[in-house]
C-alpha cells in the first residue's frame, strides 16, 4: 500500500505526541514514587538517609565509622580508595548491616535494635558494633596492592560484574582480588574483629557459637570442609547462611590462637607483596595449604569441645527426656494444651515450609497448621496463645515490618489483624484479652498493647535509644509484665513492670535479677505465678534458671551438655524445655530440682584473649572522642542524578550476527545505584558486513524504576556462541517504568509499561527468525505481574506459590495497529519429598490483525537457552518456549498452552572441587506441555505436544561467580503425527 507523505507525517507526529505523553507520564510516576533523600558527608564517608526521623542517629553513626576506620587503617595498613557510602534505613524491624566494595564502597545499616535471640549476636551498643563489623568488609575488599591500584587506574575504577559482559569477571578480579574470597572468609574475619574492637562484644566470644560446635562434637555431627561449607553447609543445615559466620569466626579464632595474631593479619591483609587470591596468600603465610590447616582446626575443635564436655560432666548432667519428635530445626515460643496433650509452636526445618504446628505429644505426630510468611531464622516468629478462645496470635513478615495475625484452632482459619505493626515479643493477657508486645520503630523500642479487635497499636511506653526490651511475659493475675532489658553497655537485667503504672505512662521497673553481661532469655511465669523460668548463658552453656518471688532468689535447674532454652512450666509441676542438638531444637522434659554445682566452660575466644594482650589494645576509644561537628563537611539534600559518575571503563568483545566485535563499556552510577547504567560501543572489523552495520552502540540507563535503553546495530556477547541471537541491525529506543501496586512480601503486584520505537530492523525484536515486514515501527506494552512464591529452607528455587501476569501490547507498523493480549498463570505445590515440587504453568493469548503479518502473531519453539547464556536456566517454562521444535517455528494468532513440570530433589555435593571451582548442586526436571494454536480459525488450528527433561549443575568459580551448566532433551509431536527432537546444552554465566 502506498502511503501519502502527509499521512505518514501525521502518523509520525501522532506517534511522537503519544511517546511524549508516555514520557511525561513516566516522569510523573517516577517523581511521585520516590522519597526525598538527605546526605551528610565527611572526608571519608557520605551517609544517606530518607527519613528525617532517622536523622538523630547520623552524627553518632559518623563518629562510630570514623572511630572504627582510624583503627582499621592502623591494623591493616589501609588507605581507603574512595569515600564509603552508608545508607541508613529502616526496612526491617531488626537491625542489620551489609557491605560491599565493588564497584564502590558501600554499607547499609538497618537502624533498629538487633535480634539477639539465643545470644546469636551480642547485645550492646549496636551502631558501633555494626560499623566495627561492616568496615572490616570494606577493608578486606577495598585494601589494594600496587597492582590492584594500577588495574583500578587502567579501568577507571573497580569493575563490577556484569552478566551482559562476562569478561568483566576477569577485570573485576584484577581490580578487587580479595573481594573474591568465600563468605566464611569475609564474615569470619569481620566477626572476629568486631569482638575485639568492641571490647569483647562479638561472636568470637559468643555463647551460641561455642555451643554449636560443642553440640556437633557431642552428637558426632559432620564438621564441613571449607569447600563443603560453601557447597552444602550453607544450604542444608537449619542455620543455612549463618554457618558462614559460625565456621569463619571459629577458624579465624583458631588461627590466631594457634599461629598467632600476626600470621592471621598477614594472611588477611592485602599488601604490595601479598598474593592476590586468598588461599594462595594463606599457603604463603602459613606454609601449609588451607585444607591442611582447616583439617587441623577440626581436630583441635573436637579436642577443645571434648574438654568442655568433660568440664560439664564433672557434675551430674541434666538428661532431657525427649518428646517423640525429631529435632525441630528452629522453634518459636511454644504453648502446651493439657487437654489435647498438644504443643503449639512455629517451626522451621530444612525442606519444609515454616509454619504454625500442632505437635501431638502422645502420638509424635506433627500437624502443619499454617504457613508463616517471612519467617525468622532462629525462632521462626513471635507467638502468643489465648487458651480461652483456642487462638494463636503470631507475627508474620519478620524480616520486614511485622504484621499481626490470629489463627483459630477451632476453625483452622487465619486472619491478618493488622499490617505493619512492627511488633514482636507478643504475650497474651488472659485477664483482659489484651495483647502486649515490643515494637521497634525509628530506632526506638516501645512496649505496646492491642485491645480486641486488635486493629490498633496502642503505644504504652517508649524507651530511650539503646535500651532494648525483649522476651516479655504477663503474670497470671494480669498485674505485672516481666521482660529482659539491656542497656548500651550490654548489661542485662530481668525486670518487672507494674501494668497499672505502665498504662498511666510510668515506665519504672523493678530489677528482679542482674544478669550482668548474660542475657536473661525467655523468662515465663509458672501457672501459679510464684516462679519465673528462663535460660541464660551465665555458666557459659545455656542453662535453665528459676526466680522465686517468695524468696527473691535465682536458682539454676540444669547442667546442660549443649544448651537448654525456652522453659515452659506446666500446671502439673513438670517442666518442658528445648534442647539444642546438632540438628536443631528438640522439645524435652527436664527435672525441676535446683542444682548446687554447675561448672563453667571455657571459650576459645577467651583462651586467645588471655594469650594475646595486643587484643586489649584494639578496643576502640569512646566514639565521643570524635567530634562529628568538626568532621562533617557538608549536609543537605541528596540528588542521585547529580551524584551519578562513571565507575569503570573496560574492553569488551561482542557478537553481531555471525561476526565478532571489540569495543569498550562504561558503567556509571550514583552511590546508591538509584541512578546509573552502562554505555557500550564496539566495532566489527569483518569486511563481510556492510559498512553501516560494523559500528555498534548500546545504552541502558535508569533513575529509580524508570529505564531508558537504546541501541544501534545491537551486539551481544552471547551471540558469539550458539543458535540464539539477540543482535539486530537497526536502531531502537525504549522507555519503561514499573510501579508496585502491592508490596507485601512475598506478595507483590507490579504495574509495568513500556514504549519503544524501532528503525531499520530486519527481524522482530523478540523473534530472531521472523523477518519484519516494515523497517520502522512502534510498540507499547502495559502489564500487571503478580507473584506470591515461597521456598522451603535449603531449596534451590521457589517450590510453592502462584504467579501470573497479564500483558497487553500494541505494535504500530506500516500505518496499522496490531493489538495483542496474553496472560500466564503458574501454580506450584511442594511434594512431601524434600525440596521437590510440581508446577502447572498455563498461558493463553490472542493477537489481532492480518494473520499473515508477523506483528499479528505469537511465535513458539525451542528450549531457548543459548550455548553460553545469561538468561534464566529453565527457559522451557516461558510461554513462548516449546522444546522439541526449532526456535520461533510455530506462529499463531491465538494460543493456549499448559505445561506440567516435576522438579526432583536437588543432589548437593560436599566434596567436589576446590575454592576456585566447586560444584554446588545438580537437579533434574521433567516436563511435558501441550500447545493449541489459531483457536478461532478451524482451517489453521494446530496442536502440539512435547515431553522433555533438563539436568542442571550449579558450579561456583572463585566463590562468587555462579554458573549453571544445563543439558536437556525434548521430543515434540504435532497433530499430523510429525515428531521432532531437540537437544540443548548451555552454560549460564553469572
Amino acid at each position, binding site marked *: 500500500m502506498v502511503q501519502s507523505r502527509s499521512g505518514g507525517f501525521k502518523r509520525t507526529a501522532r506517534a511522537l505526541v503519544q511517546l511524549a505523553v508516555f514520557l511525561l507520564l513516566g516522569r510523573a510516576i517516577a517523581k511521585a514514587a520516590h522519597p526525598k533523600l538527605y546526605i551528610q558527608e565527611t572526608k571519608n564517608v557520605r551517609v544517606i538517609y530518607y527519613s*528525617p526521623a532517622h536523622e*538523630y542517629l547520623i552524627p553518632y553513626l559518623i563518629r562510630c565509622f570514623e572511630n572504627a576506620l582510624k583503627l582499621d587503617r592502623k591494623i591493616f595498613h589501609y588507605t581507603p580508595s574512595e569515600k564509603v557510602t552508608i545508607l541508613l534505613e529502616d526496612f526491617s524491624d531488626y537491625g542489620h548491616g551489609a557491605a560491599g566494595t565493588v564497584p564502590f564502597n558501600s554499607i547499609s545499616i538497618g537502624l533498629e535494635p538487633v535480634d539477639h535471640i539465643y545470644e546469636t549476636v551480642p547485645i550492646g551498643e549496636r551502631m558501633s558494633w555494626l560499623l566495627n563489623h561492616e568496615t572490616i568488609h570494606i577493608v578486606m575488599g577495598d585494601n589494594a596492592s600496587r597492582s590492584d591500584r594500577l588495574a583500578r587506574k587502567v579501568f577507571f575504577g573497580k569493575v563490577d560484574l556484569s552478566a551482559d559482559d562476562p569478561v568483566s569477571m576477569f577485570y573485576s578480579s584484577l581490580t578487587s582480588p580479595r573481594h573474591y574470597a568465600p563468605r566464611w572468609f569475609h564474615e569470619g574475619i569481620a566477626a572476629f574483629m568486631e569482638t575485639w574492637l568492641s571490647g569483647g562484644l562479638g561472636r568470637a566470644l559468643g555463647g551460641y557459637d561455642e555451643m554449636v560446635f560443642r553440640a556437633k562434637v557431642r552428637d558426632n555431627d559432620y564438621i564441613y570442609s571449607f569447600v563443603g561449607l560453601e557447597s552444602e553447609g550453607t544450604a542444608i543445615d537449619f542455620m543455612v547462611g549463618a554457618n558462614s559466620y559460625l565456621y569463619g569466626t571459629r577458624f579465624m579464632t583458631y588461627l590466631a590462637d594457634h599461629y598467632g595474631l600476626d600470621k592471621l593479619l598477614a594472611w588477611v591483609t592485602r599488601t604490595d607483596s601479598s598474593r592476590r587470591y586468598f588461599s594462595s596468600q594463606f599457603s604463603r603465610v602459613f606454609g601449609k595449604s588451607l585444607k591442611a590447616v582447616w583439617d587441623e582446626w577440626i581436630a583441635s575443635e573436637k579436642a577443645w569441645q571434648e574438654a568442655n564436655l568433660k568440664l560439664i560432666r564433672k557434675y551430674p548432667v541434666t538428661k532431657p527426656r525427649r518428646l517423640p519428635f525429631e529435632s525441630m530445626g528452629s522453634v518459636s515460643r511454644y504453648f502446651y494444651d493439657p487437654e489435647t496433650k498438644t504443643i503449639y509452636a512455629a517451626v522451621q526445618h530444612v525442606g519444609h515450609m515454616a509454619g504454625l504446628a500442632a505437635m501431638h505429644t502422645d502420638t509424635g505426630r506433627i500437624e502443619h497448621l499454617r504457613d508463616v510468611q517471612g519467617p525468622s531464622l532462629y525462632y521462626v516468629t513471635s507467638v502468643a496463645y489465648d487458651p480461652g478462645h483456642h487462638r494463636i496470635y503470631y507475627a508474620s513478615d519478620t524480616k520486614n515490618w511485622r504484621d499481626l495475625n490470629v489463627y483459630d484452632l477451632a476453625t483452622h482459619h487465619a486472619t491478618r489483624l493488622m499490617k505493619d505493626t512492627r511488633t514482636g515479643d507478643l504475650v497474651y493477657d488472659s485477664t483482659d484479652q489484651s495483647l502486649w508486645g515490643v515494637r521497634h520503630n525509628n530506632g526506638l523500642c516501645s512496649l505496646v498493647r492491642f485491645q480486641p479487635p486488635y486493629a490498633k497499636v496502642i503505644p504504652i511506653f517508649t524507651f530511650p535509644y539503646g535500651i532494648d526490651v525483649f522476651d516479655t511475659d504477663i503474670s497470671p493475675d494480669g498485674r505485672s509484665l516481666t521482660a529482659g532489658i539491656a542497656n548500651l553497655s550490654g548489661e542485662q537485667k530481668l525486670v518487672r513492670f507494674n501494668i497499672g503504672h505502665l498504662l498511666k505512662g510510668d515506665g519504672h521497673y523493678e530489677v528482679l535479677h542482674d544478669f550482668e553481661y548474660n542475657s536473661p532469655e525467655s523468662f515465663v511465669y509458672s501457672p501459679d505465678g510464684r516462679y519465673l523460668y528462663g535460660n541464660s548463658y551465665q555458666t557459659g552453656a545455656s542453662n535453665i534458671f528459676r526466680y522465686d518471688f517468695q524468696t527473691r532468689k535465682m536458682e*539454676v535447674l540444669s547442667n546442660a551438655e549443649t544448651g537448654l532454652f525456652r522453659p515452659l512450666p506446666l500446671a502439673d509441676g513438670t517442666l518442658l524445655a528445648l534442647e539444642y542438638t546438632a540438628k536443631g531444637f528438640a522439645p524435652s522434659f527436664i527435672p525441676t530440682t535446683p542444682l548446687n554445682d554447675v561448672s563453667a566452660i571455657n571459650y576459645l575466644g577467651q583462651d586467645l584473649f588471655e594469650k594475646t594482650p595486643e587484643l586489649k589494645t584494639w578496643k576502640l576509644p569512646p566514639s565521643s572522642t570524635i567530634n562529628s561537628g568538626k568532621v562533617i563537611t557538608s549536609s543537605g539534600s541528596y540528588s542521585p542524578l547529580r551524584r551519578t559518575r562513571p565507575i569503570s571503563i573496560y574492553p569488551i568483545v561482542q557478537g553481531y550476527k555471525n561476526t565478532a566485535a571489540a569495543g569498550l563499556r562504561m558503567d556509571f552510577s550514583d552511590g546508591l545505584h538509584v541512578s546509573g547504567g552502562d554505555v557500550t560501543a564496539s566495532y566489527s572489523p569483518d569486511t563481510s558486513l556492510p559498512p553501516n552495520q560494523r559500528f555498534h552502540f548500546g545504552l541502558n540507563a535508569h533513575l529509580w524504576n524508570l529505564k531508558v535503553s537504546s541501541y544501534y546495530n545491537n551486539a551481544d556477547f552471547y551471540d558469539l556462541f550458539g543458535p540464539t541471537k539477540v543482535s539486530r541491525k537497526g536502531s531502537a529506543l525504549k522507555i519503561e517504568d514499573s510501579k508496585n501496586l502491592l508490596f507485601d512480601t512475598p506478595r507483590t503486584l507490579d504495574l509495568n509499561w513500556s514504549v519503544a520505537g524501532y528503525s531499520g530492523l530486519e527481524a522482530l525484536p523478540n523473534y530472531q527468525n521472523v523477518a519484519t515486514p516494515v523497517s520502522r515501527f512502534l510498540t507499547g506494552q502495559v502489564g500487571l505481574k503478580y507473584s506470591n512464591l515461597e521456598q522451603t529452607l535449603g531449596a534451590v528455587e521457589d517450590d510453592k506459590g502462584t504467579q501470573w501476569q497479564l500483558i497487553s501490547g500494541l505494535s504500530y507498523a506500516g500505518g496499522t495497529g496490531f493489538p495483542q493480549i496474553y496472560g500466564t498463570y503458574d501454580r506450584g505445590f511442594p511434594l512431601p519429598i524434600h525440596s521437590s515440587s510440581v508446577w502447572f504453568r498455563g498461558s493463553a493469548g490472542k493477537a489481532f490483525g492480518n494473520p499473515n503479518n508477523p506483528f499479528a502473531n505469537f511465535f513458539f519453539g525451542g528450549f531457548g537457552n543459548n550455548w553460553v547464556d545469561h538468561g534464566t536456566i529453565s527457559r522451557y517454562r516461558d510461554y513462548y518456549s516449546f522444546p522439541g521444535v526449532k526456535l520461533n517455528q510455530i506462529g499463531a494468532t491465538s494460543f493456549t498452552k499448559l505445561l506440567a513440570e516435576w522438579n526432583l530433589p536437588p543432589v548437593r555435593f560436599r566434596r567436589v572441587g576446590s575454592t576456585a571451582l566447586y560444584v554446588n548442586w545438580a537437579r533434574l526436571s521433567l516436563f511435558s506441555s501441550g500447545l493449541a494454536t489459531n483457536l478461532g480459525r478451524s482451517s489453521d488450528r494446530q496442536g502440539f505436544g512435547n515431553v522433555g527433561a533438563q539436568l542442571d549443575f550449579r558450579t561456583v568459580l*572463585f566463590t562468587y561467580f555462579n554458573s549453571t551448566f544445563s543439558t536437556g532433551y525434548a521430543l515434540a509431536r504435532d497433530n499430523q503425527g510429525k515428531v521432532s527432537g531437540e537437544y540443548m546444552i548451555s552454560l549460564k554465566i553469572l
Partner: protein
Amino acid sequence: MSVQGRNLRYAVLIGAVVIAGAGIWFVSKSSAPPSTEKIQGAIGQRNVERDTKVNDADVAVTPGEAPVAVKEFLKSKEFRKIADNQSFKGLMSNQSFKSLLSNQSFQGLLSNKSFMALLSNQSFQGLLSNQSFQGLLSNQSFQSLLSNQSFQGLLSNRSFQGLLSNQSFQGLLSNQSFQGLLSNQSFQGLLSNRSFQSLLSNQSFQGLLSNQSFQGLLSNQSFQGLLSNQSFQGLMSNQSFKSLMSNQSFRSLASNQSFQGLMSNQSFQSLLSNQSFQGLLSNQSFQGLLSNQSFQGLLSNQSFQGLLSNQSFQGLLSNQSFQGLLSNQSFQGLLSNQSFQGLLSNQSFQALLSNQSFQGLLSNQSFQGLLSNQSFQSLLSNQSFQSLLSMQNGMSFMSNAMQAGSSAD
C-alpha cells in the same frame, strides 16, 4: 559468512579465551589446590572479656532532632512561598513551634508530598499566618496529634485539605474552645479513626463543619465531651449516621441553636451514647423524621427536650418496639402534627409518657396500631381530649383503661 570474517571471529574468540585463562591462572597461581553471687550453690560463671562500658554521653543522641531535614524543608519551594509572611515569621521564632519542627513524626510529615502540596495552598498559608492557629500549632497536645500517622494520612487527604482551606472552617480552627477540643486526647483518637476521617472527608459533612452555628456547637464544652465519648464516636463512624450528618435537612437541625442546646444536654448526650438509641438514629425512616421541620421544631422545644432528657423516657426511646413505632410513617405524621406536639410539650402528658406502665403500653404493638390509626390520631389531636389526658385523673384512667384493653388482647 566469508572465510576471512570467520577467521577473524575465531581469532578474537581465541584471544578472549586465552586472556581469560591467563587471568584465572594469574589470580589463582600458587594456590595449593586442596587435595580432597546471687545464685544458689557453686554455680560457675563464664569468664569472657567484657570491656564494653558505654555512657550515654558517648552516644549522645536525641531522637527527634533533624536539623538537616528542617533546613532543607525551610529551603523548599513550598516553604519559601509562606516564609515571607510576617506573621509566619513570628511563628518560626516560637520555641514551641520549633520543637514541633524537630518532632520526628512531624518531620516524617514534612517528607509527605501531599502535605507539601497543602503547604503551598494559599488559603492554608493564610491559616498558618493566623496567630490563633499558630497558638494551636504550638500546643503540645495538638503537636502529638500532628505526629499521629493516621491523622497525617487525613492531612494528606485532598478533600480534607479542601476543608482546611475553607475560611469558615479555618475560623473554627482558630476558635480557642475548638482548639481545646483538638487538644483532647479522646477527640484526637476520634480524628485518628479512619471511619471518622472518611466522614471528615465527606463534602456534605464539611459543609456542616463550615456552618458557624454548628461550629458554635463544636465549641460547646459539653458537646465536646459527647464527641470524646467512645460510644458516640462509634455512632459518628456509623455509615448510616454519617449519611444523616450529611443530610441537608438534618444539618439545618444541627445548626439550630435550640437543638444544639439539646445536644449539649448531658442527659441527652447519654441517650446519644446509648447503643440502642444509636440504632434508632441509624434507622433511615427515623432519620426522615429527624429531617422533618415540624419534628425538628418539637426537638427544639425546651419542654420536649426535658422529656428527652428524662431517663425513663430514654429507656422508652431505646425500646426496639417503640423505635418501630417511631419509624412508622403514620405515627411520624402524628408526631409532626403541631397540636399533638403541643400535647407532647405538656408537662402533665410528659409525666404520663415517663410513666413506666404507660411506656409498657406504648411498647405494646396493638396499642401502637391504635396510635397509627388516623381516627385515633385525630382524637389525640383534639384539644378537649388532650385536656382530659393532661388531667391527673384522666391520665391514670387512660393508663389503666389501656392496660386493661391490652391484657384483654
